[in-house]
């Protein structure tokens, strides 16, 4: 389809405390219906959105972290995480959820579409995007 654009959702904030992370996730879920190339980027405190083992019982908010794991079903092909942001917070790829992707017709699959990338690549990916939504 010629009018397919590369959409990049840039996530920069911690998952709770503000509504940004959840709003971003909801827009991503909706965007999937429009058959665009959707990618997500996590930088700064946004990397916390993908951490495993979140428990929101103490703050009385819904824990939406399991929802990221279904994004492959919503045809999100790439979830990039900024390496420097991870390192600055003492985190590694092992602390992050894994998201599987599968083409249901061809059964082509990717075990994990979450990818840690360096700052140069972050800049490059943002540059390549047609539309960047920043949250």
């Amino acid at each position, binding site marked *: 389809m010629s009018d397919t654009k590369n959409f990049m959702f840039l996530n920069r904030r911690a998952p709770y405390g503000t509504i940004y992370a959840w709003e971003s996730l*909801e827009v991503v*879920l*909706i965007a*999937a*219906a429009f058959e665009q190339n959707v990618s997500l980027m996590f930088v700064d405190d946004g990397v916390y959105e993908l951490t495993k083992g979140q428990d929101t019982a103490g703050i009385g908010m*819904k*824990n*939406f972290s*399991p*929802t990221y*794991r*279904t994004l492959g*079903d*919503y045809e999100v092909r790439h979830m990039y995480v900024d390496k420097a942001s991870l390192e600055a917070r003492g985190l590694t790829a092992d602390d992050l959820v894994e998201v599987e992707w599968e083409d*249901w017709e061809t059964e082509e699959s990717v075990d994990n579409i979450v990818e840690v990338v360096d700052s140069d690549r972050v800049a490059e990916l943002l540059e390549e995007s047609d539309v960047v939504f920043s949250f």
Partner: protein
Amino acid sequence: MPIEVDGKTLETDEEGYLVNLSDWVPGVAEVMAKEDDLELTQDHWDIINFLREYYEEYQIAPAVRVLTKAVGKRLGKEKGNSKYLYGLFPYGPGKQACRYAGLPKPTGCV
């Protein structure tokens, strides 16, 4: 508008979705289906149960497209299409089946 299920009064929102997801029992689907003049078969329950499992795992109600693909994969290709799902749930598999399953309305569903 609250509904009566197994002698208990359960709160629903203005569109008929359960307010408290934890209130759900199979009787909820039965009562809601009866109000819609629909008789639930095993085929309906397969979808309702799938929705509940999906929600349990991912904490959202799936978009119809995702539901359709997942049903095709889990329950057989002949069932993974909107014609089949609308046949079971004429008000829309997203809206109606999610309501019966005690889930919120799918994101992006108007």
